[in-house]
């Protein structure tokens, strides 16, 4: 049984210098800070088109993969190359946005997972193409307003549910898949420190609230992230070997989803009926996860 990390066990050393041009309250930048704090500086960072090149103050070698669709391929090449150089100790990590993960980068991601490449993929998930002004991605949740799923008489935000990439990757039977949240740094860091010792394909999807795109005050980033977890909208779990499922944080009682939704501009248009739909789906999903907790799945 792994020891639960306390906030006091978080490494003191920062891999990030102060100062970068990300928006105030950027969840993605915070995810970057925590990820490299946990990985340590014997690692590299791959980035593609996203807000991540803006988190330029992380002090590890960073590579801009010059193809939006190519993060997995680029990380594969680095992993194989460092192996040839006898430097498998260097962690090949990527800080990739949700679009580069779930949409345009998905073919390469699935292929790298299938080949079980020795890489650690971090998706900082802000649930839309925030760097280009907030267009819908397949990581955007149901009913969310984005620049391309506006609110009108005929459109109620995104009509589809979020693509569940952690579970899709788990069924590739990769060694490690986890979700995390910037509001739970001890959970996030403990998972990374565990994952970084594993060889093979590792994936973590981090809920990274975006004040600019989601429409809330920058000071509320952590609050939004925390309420998402406590209401069951963003469950924290990990899946080992694509089978062993474990919830890593179980609130005694779920808060109503409206607490998380009402402070976000992208959900301001929700009718009671739409809120209820989200509430119902969230509870159903949470109950399914509770059933799976501690068991072999698939």
């Amino acid at each position: 049984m792994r020891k639960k990390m306390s906030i006091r066990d978080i490494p003191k050393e920062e891999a990030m210098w102060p100062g970068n041009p990300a928006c105030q309250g950027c969840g993605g930048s915070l995810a970057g800070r925590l990820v490299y704090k946990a990985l340590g500086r014997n690692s590299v960072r791959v980035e593609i088109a996203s807000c991540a090149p803006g988190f330029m103050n992380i002090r590890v070698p960073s590579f801009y993969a010059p193809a939006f669709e190519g993060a997995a391929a680029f990380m594969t090449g680095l992993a194989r190359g460092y192996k040839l150089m006898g430097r498998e100790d260097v962690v090949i990590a990527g800080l990739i946005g949700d679009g580069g993960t779930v949409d345009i980068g998905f073919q390469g991601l699935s292929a790298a997972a299938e080949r079980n490449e020795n890489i650690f993929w971090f998706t900082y998930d802000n649930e839309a193409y925030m760097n280009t002004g907030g267009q819908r991605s397949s990581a955007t949740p149901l009913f969310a307003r984005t620049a391309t799923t506006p609110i009108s008489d005929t459109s109620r935000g995104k009509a589809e549910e979020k693509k569940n990439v952690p579970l899709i990757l788990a069924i590739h039977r990769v060694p490690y898949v986890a979700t995390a949240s910037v509001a739970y740094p001890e959970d996030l860091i403990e998972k990374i420190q565990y994952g970084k010792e594993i060889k093979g394909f590792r994936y973590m999807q981090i809920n990274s609230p975006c004040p600019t795109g989601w429409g809330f005050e920058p000071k509320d980033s952590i609050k939004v992230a925390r309420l998402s977890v406590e209401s069951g909208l963003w469950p924290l779990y990990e899946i080992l070997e694509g089978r062993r499922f474990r919830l890593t944080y179980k609130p005694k009682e779920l808060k109503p989803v409206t607490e998380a939704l009402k402070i976000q501009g992208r959900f301001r248009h929700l009718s009671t009926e739409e809120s209820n739909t989200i509430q119902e789906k969230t509870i159903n999903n949470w109950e399914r996860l509770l059933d799976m907790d501690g068991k072999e799945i698939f």
Partner: protein
Amino acid sequence: MKSEVMVGNKAVAYSAKLARVNLIAAYPITPQTTIVQYLSEFVANGEIKAEFVNVEGEITAQLVCMAGSIAGARAFTATSGPGLIYMHHALHGTARYRLPVVMAVANRGVRTMGPDHTDMMDQRDTGWIQLYCENNQEALDTGIMAYKIAEDERVRLPVSYGLDGYVLSYTAEPVEIPEQKEVDDFLPPYKSTYPVLPENFDAEIEDYKKHWLKGKSINEPFTPYPADESFSHLTMVNWGPGHDQQWRWRSHQEAMMKAKQVIKEVDEEYGRRFGRSYGGLVDEYRCEDADVVIVAMGTIASTARVAIDNLRREGKPIGLVKLKSFRPFPKEEFERIGKTVSTIGVLDRNISLGEGGIVYNSIRSAIYDLEEKPLVLGYHLGLAGKEVRLRDVEQIAERTLKTANEKKVETFVTWI
């Protein structure tokens, strides 16, 4: 030295083996597929010690080679036609990061499965060196020379080389296989001059800042790597005032121009060591005292040699210029040739729609500054895999000779 009858794709696989590539990433596509199969056999039976990545598409193949090369691998990939077009996005990246990746292209047109040069011509502005081969021996030799050119510090550019699909890729010819030791002497195993390692990060940033503070960065960009500055973490200190964004293009163009000399040197050294050379950028065949030359690429050059021999027997003053290096383009060579001949006939197995034959127009441009310019005629042939017969090339040669004699042009461009 031993000799074996082998198809072009096997010659390519042998060249990669002899060059001691240690990272191979490729995806199957006709008519390139067997290159990958031969290589996977070499790797499986231990003849090549390499990381072999069976990727899910060509763009991934190129990106794996790109990133592997950054980490220090000698990387190889191969593709054809639509696969090369799918790779296009990543080709720009490998070139801008100045990585010595080598790629064989079994040329396949973009409109049929037949051979033509439209696939590689589509990539002409990606910043890759482009060489074209006439036979399987040349494919093997070029595959080895390609790394020597790509890794030269004056160049540091990726090299692609084409062999006509089917006509070479699936056709067997006798090929001499050089000894591994001799190849090792010519092309020592690769060691990256620019390793990117986490432990060097702080020192590199300090160096960079010092350079920046001296105000040298404007037209003398400094990075520990020869690459485009977006390559790495140094991106963070390079977007300062006065930074010349055009530098990335200018320095790339300079490297391309320097590659002309390097290609010639490498070809000459290869000739000294192995007894075979290909004229550097162009191979001139029976051009001495010629009044007319025809220009061809790839296997058409082979057919043209026979046509030239036949016409020379009849006493006609005609020669062949085989264009081996399309990028960089041998402007100086064509200026020199243009001074001695009255008419040039250009055989284009390609087309740039809305303008015409790509080599035709390049040669016309190359000779523009000559005071006395030869006539330049263009011929489209072999596109979409249309068969190129000896009599087609003879017809072209006769037509060009007739124009030279009569000093009168009926049509500048002809479809054969």
